[in-house]
């Protein structure tokens, strides 16, 4: 260990503010990128679900229209 005690470790020979501030900010920035990526994935999942539901709705509407009969071409 390069330090005699935990207090010494935190103090970093007087430079504690700078060292810990650097590590903290770096962590925040990089974790921020990772978090943004994970959030974006969640949004994509939501969008995918919406897209799937819409596709199902359209498919159902098409199927029901085919059932009713091809003579009735009514606009929905």
């Amino acid at each position, binding site marked *: 260990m390069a330090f005699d005690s935990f207090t010494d470790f935190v103090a970093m020979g007087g430079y504690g503010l700078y060292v810990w*501030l650097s590590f903290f900010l770096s962590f925040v*920035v990089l974790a921020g*990128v990772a978090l*943004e990526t994970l959030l974006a994935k969640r949004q994509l999942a939501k969008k995918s679900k919406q897209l799937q539901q819409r596709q199902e709705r359209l498919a159902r509407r098409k199927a029901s229209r085919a059932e009713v009969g091809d003579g009735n071409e009514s606009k929905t």
Partner: protein
Amino acid sequence: MWRWLHPYAKPEATYHLLQKLLPWFVALTLVTLVTGVIWGLAFAPGDYQQGDSYRIIFLHVPSAIFSMGAYMGMAIMGAVALIWQIKTAEWSIPAIAPVGAALTVVALLTGAIWGKPMWGTWWVWDARLTSELILLFLYVGVMALYFAFDDARTGAKAAAILSLVGVINLPIIHFSVEWWNTLHQGATITKFEQPSIATSMLIPLLICLAGFAFLTVSLVMMRLKNEILRHELHRPWAQQRLEQD
């Protein structure tokens, strides 16, 4: 020779490859980064001149190196996208750019904070910091250009051209800023310009370098997976993937 790469032009194949590799890279990132940081912070000896403030080096040097590495990677993918029109290569540009920009910000922040105990002010126009600042502007330019287009494909092409122009300019910019700095401030001897660094400090630095390498790759992989999904959302395989995860 590159035939084994051909299947990966298909986004689905690339996605599955990324999915398989990502856990390994994340694990490697955690192992190397945690080891390197703890070693550097607690076990490496203090510096003769700078005391314990030098420990910022374990973040500053790797982030600076990979901020430039990411830009090169982005430019290479840009070239691939322009030459072979491969969509996955196009999508890798918005995947890489924010990661590279974040690394540049980390390099700037750590460099500036380190500057306070070293030079007395929160900002100095030294060669490395100025180069990193300009690199940040280059990244911002690429991202701004990409998002200015409604069509992502055209945006990616424009961003690709710009990153290629930027990568050619990077050595010129770096060289001219170094030269400008010696002109106006006289030679500043920084820790990195000394011919050798003690092995006890070099080893944790190398571990942190590896850690940042894995971190960069992991982040880019995660973002590229998202980009692939974003553009293939209408395909059933993508919708399945999103349901499962």
